[in-house]
């Protein structure tokens, strides 16, 4: 199996608190991988670790390069996209400016399709309606759509998506899920963190379960459904 992203023995820290304790994980091109775990298990931290947003040690490889210790913008320029859990849209910019910022400087394209503003607007017509508005006034769900589209504008080969369904109406959740599947069909890999088990299990090929900062389960969604013990111990309250 070729690997797009590979983590080996990754540790992550916030100041003195040690959050990830030796995580191993792989994502292959064009694969959707879900990262599950309880609140505070460190899933978001893992995504941040890949992006270089937290202090890390260990090895993080993207394609053939080691990206551990790189600055976030360097990681992003290599083709990693990140949709953070609190969306982090830029409130004082307009919706369109937010999207424009998603385009990477240098305009590197990769093999697949390159995304344009129009694609995004087609996907989420709501954004087009609000294109010239300050993004700060968008509704929670609209901000979520914006955050996702903005990252796609950079044509990433791998997207790290943190809780994309949070605050979305069921209908839009469905839309997002389809969007992720569409991405996958175009060869983009997705590392997904999602609370809503049903969605995660539905669309992903493999799942990892994090507990106490390390991987406690790895397998297919079917394996997880079958594994009552892991679910009870590491996922439910």
């Amino acid at each position: 199996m070729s690997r797009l992203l590979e983590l080996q023995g990754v540790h992550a820290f916030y100041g003195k608190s040690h959050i990830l304790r030796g995580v191993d994980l792989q994502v292959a091109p064009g694969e959707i991988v879900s990262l599950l775990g309880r609140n505070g298990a460190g899933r978001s931290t893992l995504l941040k670790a890949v992006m270089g947003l937290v202090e890390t040690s260990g090895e993080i490889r993207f394609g053939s390069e080691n990206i551990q210790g790189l600055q976030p913008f360097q990681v992003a320029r290599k083709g990693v996209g990140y949709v953070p859990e609190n969306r982090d849209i830029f409130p004082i910019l307009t919706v369109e400016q937010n999207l424009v910022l998603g385009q990477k400087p240098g305009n590197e394209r990769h093999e697949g399709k390159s995304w344009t503003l129009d694609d995004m607007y087609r996907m989420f017509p709501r954004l087009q309606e609000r294109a010239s508005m300050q993004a700060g006034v968008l509704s929670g769900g609209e901000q979520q759509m914006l955050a996702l589209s903005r990252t796609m504008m950079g044509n990433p080969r791998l997207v790290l998506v943190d809780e994309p369904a949070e605050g979305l109406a069921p209908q839009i959740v469905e839309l997002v899920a389809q969007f992720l599947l569409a991405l996958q069909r175009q060869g983009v890999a997705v590392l997904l963190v999602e609370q809503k088990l049903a969605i995660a299990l539905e669309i992903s090929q493999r799942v990892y379960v994090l507990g106490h900062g390390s991987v406690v389960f790895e397998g297919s969604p079917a394996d997880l459904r079958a594994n009552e013990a892991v679910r009870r111990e590491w996922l439910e309250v």
Partner: protein
Amino acid sequence: MNAMLRQQNSRASWLIWGTYATALLLAPVLFPEPASLSVLSQTGTAMLLALSYNMLLGQGGMMSFGHAVYSGLGGYVAIHALNLAAQDILPLPVSLVPLAGGLGGMFFGAVFGYISTRKAGTGFAMITLGMVELVFASALMFPDFFGGEGGVSGNRVIGEPFLGITFGPQIEVYYLIAAWLFISTAAMYFFTRTPLGRILNAVRDNAERVEFVGYDPRRVRYLSVVLSAFFAGVAGGLAALNFEIVSAENVSVARSAGILLTTFIGGIGYFFGPLLGAIAGVFMTVVLSSYTKAWQLYLGSLFILIVMFAPGGLAGICMSLLKMAQDLCRAGVSGIWKLLPRLAGLVLSACLACVGLVILVEMAYRRGLESADRSIIALPGISFDTGMPTHWLLAAVLAVAGIAGFAWLRRGFPDFYEATDSGLPSLGPGGESVRAAGDSPAHVRAPRGQA
């Protein structure tokens, strides 16, 4: 258990307040020279002023560039009151003149605060900047009240001596200042423990949310400014008694900036921070300035260092030292032995760096400002000649060695910032941040957001 804890707490607080009072009482005994008495008196008023400023900055997140307006105008009111009392128009004992100052400050706080507190954050800061410029300009334009450039003078020795106290000798004025300072400190501390004081903290943290628990943040800010202006006015009144003169500089931007500087140096996250800041500030502006012309450079540099490396201020440094000491105690004898050499090394290299830098600065000042020709700074045992390149080199080597040593030894030691939360209020670029529909203000970031 709770009761016991509370008892312990109250014992600790008695201890602290007792120490504070004793320190105020004994200060003149410890520094008996007459000159130091006047420095002590100034320190007292500066402490009061800084505390009152921190009511706004530290507790309310309101950065004012015009706090001197309140103390200065309070001072003017006080000196006029004193002069009226001297003419027997106003039956006011000298010891209560600061009260007149306080009421004066409060009055102007009520007037100006009504305007400035309509805004928070940058808006507030800018309004106060405009205000102080206006007041300062008027102070020179209206000599009737402000006494022109000579200011208004008074004579604090009026009326019959009360219990032999005339307030002529400086020591009597010092104790008057100390008494007012102590009472005001207690009052301001009390304020932090009252509903209004607490809500003020809440307004600092998240003004919008406060509106949804029943409070009008503007009103909260307004009342706080008025109260803070009262204490500033008291400080102004005390200064008026101390100097027996109030002049326009007392309402200037520069003076306001000075208050901001000292308060911040002391540390705005702790109630007692401003006290330390005032001591440091007066030390630098009054004491140090009579030894070196470079005092402004030292003051500015200290300030920059604090902002960069210890935003918790001197108080923050104290607290983290305390914490370090506690950790050391816990580590036991062996732990102490392991740390001690390193600690000593740190202190030593810090001293080395300071000495080197100070010599460099002094040499530079001698060379640059005093006269074009060579001059000599004599230190006990050694002397540095600004005309000798080797001497410059020597000083530079000292400084660099000190800095390098410090940087090297410091690794792995707790960062003063990490150990101490600066308590810096968030000052959004536009004051409060943009409202997002269905969103809380952006500065209250979502949990564990990217810091």
